[in-house]
């Protein structure tokens, strides 16, 4: 009985031309037995075993490279047949001892229902019908040994399946031979996509020689705020202050704050004015070296015009037509890029002039001295702008970088032929660096024909598996975000003018991760303790509010109730962390699970 089942299982794996090419198993430290992953969700700290289903791989490669299309077609037809056979044979192999006739008839009914589906498939395929008729005729012939019939539970089906399995194996061998002759190479690689980084290459033992990443274990129980949380909280406090300022003033005022701080604009304006005047009066000023001075002044004027044009973009933007912070980000990028090469280009112009003119010309010297002073101002402005960008844009716009080389397959990934392909690859998730719930791992099985190799093409991905990383069962995590707080009652101590006030907030949340339900993990409800620091009395010193919070959608939405310990009044709050920046909205959630 066991033998028949074993044969069936082998057969099923053999014929699954569209089946799984990679089976994923998970091991963790609480259970030694590898667990097959059926729902695409894996424990975030587990070890993964990627088992290559070689017998499925062969027809898949054959199908992809068009090797032996007739054989592949036959295997596909067998696949249609085989899908329900495991169940069918399990039923046939039931132990009947001690069962009443009625119970046996019930079992026959279940079995016949399944066999009926199987027969329908066979009857729709003349070739298969002929084959099964021949198997049955052989099984029931007088020459067939009786003890063999008993081995198959006195029914032809097990025997027919074994015959079909043998035939399939022979066909697979022939396809394998074709693949081997065509020198097809197989590669397996994996990438980690986190919220901060896309396509980070990760090491798959047996399949590449990438280094392990940083060791990082996502802790199951987070019971206090980490140092990272505290830093995030401080940064969020600044962001909340800025946002409260934005709510209080108009975006235009903020742009004025930026503009007034940029000293280099007026410096370069003055310099340009002096250059233009000198240029106009050059014939009177320069009795010698007129040509060299003209070229110098002309080049300087052009360079100044360029930089002033960019600085004026900052000056002229009104913060109304576009999102002020995004526009500012765009302009400052342009300015920073330009300013990196601006001093060297000016130095080049000065050097060219000095090579031509050895004597000192006071008007030119004056312009060069002014340059030195303006360049210093520009450097200070760039520092200010960079700091402002860090305070605002980086916090507001989700940052996601693509790892160097992206998904490009490096030389570190081994190429195998079908004959020497390892049975399995292993990934130790703890050695893949920082990651969090909802991140995913992409596993790709790629084949390369000789033509692909010769032309240095990337080959064809024949299996792509996406595994979502998740802490399973109950866990806790910390979270820092911005909330909008609204006091329930207005006491003398509460002095805010607006209904809501932005405030930084830190939460310790309990959550439950599912191995099965992606929607649940996506909704990701959390319940926990919250601490926030609003400034209801507007004395510039944040108060401490303590309360409870409920979050959903990976903490994008949060609602809670707190009590302000200084102003003695309760308040409710909500947070909406959107994945894009919109002025005036509380944006971005900083997840800060503790580092080890």
């Amino acid at each position: 009985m066991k033998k028949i089942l074993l044969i069936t299982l082998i057969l099923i794996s053999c014929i699954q031309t569209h089946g799984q090419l990679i089976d994923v198993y998970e091991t963790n430290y609480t259970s030694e037995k590898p667990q097959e992953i059926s729902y695409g969700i894996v424990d975030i700290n587990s070890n993964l075993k990627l088992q290559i289903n070689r017998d499925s791989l062969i027809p898949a490669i054959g199908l992809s490279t068009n090797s032996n299309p007739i054989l592949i077609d036959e295997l596909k037809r067998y696949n249609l047949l085989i899908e329900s056979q495991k169940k069918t044979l399990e039923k046939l192999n039931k132990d009947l001892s001690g069962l009443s006739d009625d119970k046996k008839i019930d079992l026959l009914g279940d079995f016949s229902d399944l066999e009926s589906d199987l027969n329908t498939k066979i009857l729709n395929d003349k070739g298969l019908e002929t084959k099964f008729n021949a198997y049955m005729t052989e099984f029931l012939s007088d020459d067939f040994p009786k003890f063999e019939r008993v081995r198959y539970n006195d029914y032809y089906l097990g025997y027919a399946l074994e015959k079909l399995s043998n035939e399939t194996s022979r066909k697979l061998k022939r396809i394998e031979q074709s693949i081997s002759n065509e020198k097809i190479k197989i590669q397996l690689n994996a990438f980690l996509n986190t919220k901060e980084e896309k396509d980070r290459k990760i090491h798959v033992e047996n399949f590449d020689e990438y280094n392990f990443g940083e060791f990082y274990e996502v802790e199951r129980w987070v019971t206090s705020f980490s140092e990272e949380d505290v830093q995030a909280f401080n940064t969020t406090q600044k962001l909340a202050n800025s946002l409260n300022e934005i709510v209080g003033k108009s975006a235009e005022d903020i742009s004025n704050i930026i503009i007034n701080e940029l000293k280099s604009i007026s410096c370069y304006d003055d310099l340009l004015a002096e250059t233009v005047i000198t240029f106009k009066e050059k014939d009177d000023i320069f009795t010698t070296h007129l040509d060299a001075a003209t070229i110098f002044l002309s080049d300087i004027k052009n360079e100044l015009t360029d930089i002033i044009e960019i600085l004026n973009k900052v000056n002229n933007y009104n913060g109304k037509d576009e999102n002020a912070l995004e526009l500012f980000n765009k302009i400052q990028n342009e300015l920073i890029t330009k300013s990196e090469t601006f001093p060297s280009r000016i130095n080049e112009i000065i050097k060219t002039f000095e090579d031509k003119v050895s004597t000192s010309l006071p008007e030119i010297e004056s312009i060069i001295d002014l340059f030195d002073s303006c360049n210093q101002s520009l450097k200070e402005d760039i520092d200010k702008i960079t700091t402002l960008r860090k305070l605002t844009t980086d916090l507001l716009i989700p940052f996601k970088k693509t790892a160097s080389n992206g998904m490009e397959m490096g030389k570190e990934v081994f190429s195998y032929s079908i004959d020497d392909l390892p049975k399995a690859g292993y990934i130790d998730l703890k050695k893949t660096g920082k990651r969090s719930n909802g991140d995913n791992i992409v596993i790709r099985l790629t084949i390369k024909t000789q033509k692909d190799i010769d032309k240095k093409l990337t080959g064809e991905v024949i299996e792509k598996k996406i595994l979502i990383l998740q802490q399973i069962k109950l866990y806790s995590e910390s979270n820092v975000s911005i909330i909008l707080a609204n006091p329930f009652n207005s006491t003398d101590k509460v002095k805010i003018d607006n209904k809501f006030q932005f405030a930084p907030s830190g939460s310790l949340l309990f959550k439950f991760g599912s191995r099965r339900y992606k929607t649940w993990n996506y909704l990701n409800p959390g319940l926990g303790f919250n601490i926030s620091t609003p400034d209801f009395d507007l004395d510039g010193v944040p108060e401490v509010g303590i309360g409870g919070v409920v979050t959903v959608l990976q903490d994008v939405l949060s609602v809670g109730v707190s009590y302000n310990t200084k102003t003695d009044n309760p308040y409710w709050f909500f947070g909406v962390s959107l994945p894009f920046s919109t002025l005036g909205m509380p944006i971005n959630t900083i997840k800060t699970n503790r580092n080890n």
Partner: protein
Amino acid sequence: MKYSRRTIISNTVIPDDILNKKCLKIVILTQDEDIVKLADTAAKQTPFGIERIVVWVKDFDSVQINDQISGLQNNLNNCIAFSLSTINKVGLVMNDAPNINLFRVNNAFTQAGRSKNN
């Protein structure tokens, strides 16, 4: 042609003692002995220990057979064979002689064995 003891030959109707047995039956109405032989062979198999019996009604009477079995077509002249469940519900009626083979006869038993018929 020689048949096993699983095959019962009858004249006009299905014997009552066979109908009263809790087993799967196939009733052959054709004169084609090859088909009877196929059914006799298929009846060798007894999955789940449920007996299979072949009844060859050589000179059948449609009216009487219809009286015995409900759910059959009235005119059985074109009918080659039909299968019956343990409680004599019709499993499958076979009308197409040229295509009948061992697999199809076995399928008639399978249809009779389905849970909806027992």
